């Protein structure tokens, strides 16, 4: 529209037919000089750097990138391989009957399930306990939007549930706190861990992000009317604990970007030796059967790059290797078949 403005001014000038009052000769008042003021900006003389991509510079740049990336890749690959990770899928084995949905929806069935794993390598504490869900679209548009961040943060905003339909208000129009599908579908399997038969404490403190606890969930907001509808989505919440302390909820509310995701359940703050037996008693409550998803339990140690993740190391190695080989290739070309720099006869239209 600024363009418009300029154009319109031109137009306006034209309409009066006084485009540029040509000065008459002899009228040489120095004040009326039209000369543009000198400044480095208007004359486009500001210092600038525009590197020429000479063969030397290109080869050096590629070599440098390769030299940096290959060690980084090696280091992160090594770190990733140090991580010990146990994954155990239990959704199928924990339901003994064929009607899995019916089994899980029935509140009277005993859903206890025991899983035993053998630790292949020494695991140094802290050992993270995750639950892994597959096929759960936490990134689905109607799911992601179905929450009220204001309500989670401010006491006065409890009634702001318009985004949360159909889990916004109860039948008698009382607001649900926390409202929305996200909170409603809170994961509710529980794990009890025994190492070699000894019950080992799973520490569920500080599993959520600090910033979430402090800034996104209010300290004076308590759950109310939660999970009271006809359809139970998942876990219930203790109404005497403020939302900022409901760390399972906070972890869950940080929605995953992909349909396969793992979320932190707790930490075991005790080392586990190789060949130790880890027995986990699972309360298999959560319904992944209705949408064909799967659940798994993950025990993992951590290194400086986080959990087990070979991808970063491989990616660094690939790019680094590619750059190094390019640098080598260019170097060879440069040595064998050198071209004059700035020779116009090499331009495509001159050939």
């Amino acid at each position, binding site marked *: *529209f*600024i*363009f*418009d*403005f*300029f*154009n*319109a*001014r*031109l*137009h*306006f000038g*034209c*309409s*009066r*037919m*006084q*485009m*540029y*009052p*040509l*000065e*008459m000769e002899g009228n040489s008042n120095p004040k*009326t*000089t*039209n*000369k*543009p*003021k*000198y400044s480095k900006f*208007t*004359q*486009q003389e500001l210092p600038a750097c525009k590197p020429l991509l000479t063969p030397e510079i290109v080869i050096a740049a590629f070599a440098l990138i390769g030299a940096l990336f290959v060690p980084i890749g090696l280091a992160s690959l090594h770190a990733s391989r140090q991580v010990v990770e146990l994954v155990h899928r239990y959704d199928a084995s924990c339901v003994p009957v064929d009607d899995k*949905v019916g089994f899980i929806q029935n509140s009277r069935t005993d859903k206890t399930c025991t899983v035993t794993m053998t630790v292949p390598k020494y695991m140094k504490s802290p050992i993270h306990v995750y639950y892994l869900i597959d096929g*759960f*679209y*936490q990134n*689905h*548009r*109607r*799911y992601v939007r179905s929450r009220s961040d204001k309500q989670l943060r401010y006491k006065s905003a409890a009634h702001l549930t318009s985004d949360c*339909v*159909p*889990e916004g*208000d109860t*039948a008698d129009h009382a607001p649900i706190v926390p409202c929305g*599908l996200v909170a*409603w*579908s809170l994961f509710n399997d529980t794990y009890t861990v025994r190492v070699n038969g000894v019950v080992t404490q799973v520490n569920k403190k500080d599993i959520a992000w600090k910033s979430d606890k402090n800034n996104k969930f209010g300290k004076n907001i308590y759950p109310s009317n939660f999970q009271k*509808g*006809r*359809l139970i*989505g*998942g876990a219930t919440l203790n109404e005497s604990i403020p939302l900022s302390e409901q760390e399972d909820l906070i972890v869950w509310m940080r929605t995953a970007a992909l349909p396969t995701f793992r979320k932190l359940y707790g930490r075991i703050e005790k080392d586990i030796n190789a060949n130790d037996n880890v027995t986990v008693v699972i309360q298999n409550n959560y*319904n992944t059967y*209705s*949408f*064909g998803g799967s659940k798994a339990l993950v025990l993992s140690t951590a290194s400086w790059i986080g959990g087990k993740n070979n991808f970063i190391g491989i990616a660094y190695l690939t790019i680094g290797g590619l750059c190094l080989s390019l640098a080598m290739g260019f170097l060879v070309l440069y040595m064998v078949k050198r071209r004059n720099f700035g020779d116009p*006869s090499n331009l495509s239209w*001159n050939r």
Partner: protein
Amino acid sequence: MTSERPLIDVASPHPPAAASQLPPSQPEPPVRADHLGFSVEVPGPFRPSRRDQPDPSASERELHEGGEYRAVAVGEPSPEFAGNAVRTAKYSALTFLPRNLFEQFRRLSYVYFLAITVLNQLPQVAVFGRGASVLPLAFVLFVTAVKDAYEDIRRHRSDRRENNRLAAVLAPQTAGEYLPKKWKHIRVGDVVRVASNETLPADMVLLATSDPTGLAHVQTVNLDGETNLKTRYAKQETQLSFSHDGHVAGMLHCERPNRNIYGFQANLEIDGKRVSLGPSNIVLRGCELKNTTWAIGVVVYAGKETKVMLNNSGPPSKRSRLETQLNRETVILSIMLIGMCITASVLAGIWLLNHQRELEFTQFFREKDYTTGKNYNYYGIGMQIFVTFLMAVIVYQVIIPISLYISMELVRLGQAYFMGADNDLYDESSRSRFQCRALNINEDLGQIKYVFSDKTGTLTENKMEFMCASIHGVDYSSGKPACGSSVVVDDLLWTPKMAVRTDPQLLKLLNNDSSNEEAKLVLEFFLALAACNTIVPLVLDTRDPKQKLIDYQGESPDEQALAYAAASYGIVLVERTSGYVVIDVLGDRQRFDILGLHEFDSDRKRMSVIVGCPDKTVKLYVKGADSSMFGIINKSLELDNVRATEAHLHKYSSLGLRTLVVGMRELSQPEFEEWQLAYEKASTAVLGRGNLLRSIAANVECNIHILGASGIEDKLQDGVPEAIESLRQAGMKVWILTGDKQETAISIGYSCKLLTNDMTQIVINNNSKESCKRSLEEALARTKEHRVASSIGSPYPVLASESSGTVLALIVDGNSLVYILETELQEELFKVATECSVVLCCRVAPLQKAGIVALIKNRTDDMTLAIGDGANDVSMIQMADVGVGINGQEGGQAVMASDFSMGQFRFLVPLLLVHGHWNYQRMGYMILYNFYKNATFVLVLFW
């Protein structure tokens, strides 16, 4: 006009029929340029000047054949025509909102944004917050509306100021009483009195002026940017009638309002006599009266029907090539967007289908609201697919770079600012900055391949300087800086403003023995120079009260130079009215009656005056181009003299001087009377006056006795040779299109280093189609030969032709172009011309210039740039992809028609090679960046 016909047919997409089938009369008088089949629309004010063509114009045809005219009773305001109130404001308080919104939404991008915003308001589809999506569009609309409103208020104000200005209008019932009246109340038919330096309130026909001969001078700077004074006349009949009884009564018939500034046809019935009126009898709204104490005129066009208002249109708009390409890409992107949305919605449908039975309980979908038992936000798979499609449109909308158009406009604005603020493009002498008049073709400056340049005023300064004279076969060309001569008038010293170098020998000859036969001839020569022109001497005050400066104002710089030259030799033109001139001949003031004037026109290429000398003889002075003059010279009498003059002319033109031949004839009494009779009859003729006058001129301009010839230097502008050299090094082809004759053009070509001695010149200069064809074929053969020869030497033809030293230069003249552009020969001309690295076209008419530009533009993809300064370059400037106007001596028409204007030719180098390059590169980078950025953004989402 005759020379343009062929061109018209050739350039027209529907050959001859288009031109010949035009109806004889049209509601709007057909304009010369309108006949062209070119793709560029030529708006009215930019039409080539037709000052020098008094032939029956389109408007005249309309007046007499179509019978469409308006009748105005002098002194009786008639309410049936438009009033004099003008309105440039677009809106009123009521219409502002709808009209402004309508104007704004004419841009495609706004409509697109609006559609997206509306989609976003649907609760099912809403992706972003509803309010948030309205904000940007609302903001832009609001700011533009405020800006428009502000401007419109300003326009309202200026309209009001304009409409409420006062003018002295003859009160209808009183006799000769002029009362102040607001401009808006002036009506057609009112008689208005205007004093010196006042602006004219409407288009008026002059009835009388303070000058007894009915002369008035007007300045038309507001109309066409030309600063020189133009002479307008009141007809003797009305002037006399006015001076007798103080008022004029009559009936005026004039053509209907039209845009042609330089044309007017009317006749006035006064005392039962019919007086015809032409363009020289009308003064237009917006002009200022100068050097005339008062003038009285009758309003013929008022308000929005005045020529200035009819010509009120914005700068021409061209579309840059980059933008055209961008539009193509945008279409592809739209297809891509639709494809992506379809893919997304189809995939969503498949997913829904697969999970159909699970949707009810799935935690992340929950199709039912159990409190009400209804489906929540779920309308079945078909509808769901459609909603997904709309949502996808919103999510992926960024892939269509609508915002890029706005960014581009902002960038161009910045570039225009940088170009305007560049010190290298600032012309010290005319104190003009670079101006971007068309804002959307900045980046085209970096893609120019052909530069078409006018010569006069573009390559040269158009400051003419009298250099040498050949009088009676003797060459006087050793000029010395002279002090100039002055004239004593009423104890005051009048000095011509410009001193010219004088030849001492000639000066001596003139001053010493005036009885000598030779000296008499010399005197006649300078008298002819001083008298045979349309120069108006203006007397300016200087600081010294004893001294006054004479400033010669005229439409032709050549004439100015000649008048100054005559003044330097002591023959000073002191005063000019329509009836006589006062010339100070070597200190002796003499009055010469101007009995008749045959104006210069481009067909005759000469002008003549018939002068009644103080010694009661009647003399005809003629001056004109040599080609036209040698045809009417009586060669039998003084063959040696003619030969010598011809030789001198050749010498002058090879020096790059503009030449004029001056001749005279003494008219015998019967001859004069016969002429006078015919002249008076012709001047009052209504039909075909121009042709009649021309034939009379042709009758009397014969058997001319040659006086001599003059050489005027047209100085090259600074840095022109270097600029042309740089442009050629950058791979651009520079063509010069000039109205000068071949020798002059070639010599200018040499002096600006366009032509060099090692070039092979191919000259095409023929008078018939067959010979043209032959020479073109020859030329083609030569270019082939040349190409073969050069390609042996080097594998790269471009480099070879630079290095091998045999560059081809093509020189074509206007006569041949008539035959070439008319026919299939132009294909061959194109082939020859593209092989040559230099092309010079001489003796070309304005429309031929446009034809040559079109020749290249229509046959190649290369960008063309035309640069010129005069009205004759307008058609070429508008035809080319990029038109550049030079703020020069020849007025503002070229600048008004151009896309860019600047002060000097050499600025082309920084403009094209620095700014053009940067503009193109930066714009290209920005567009690519935007495309890739959007693609990344959207494709990540898509994946």
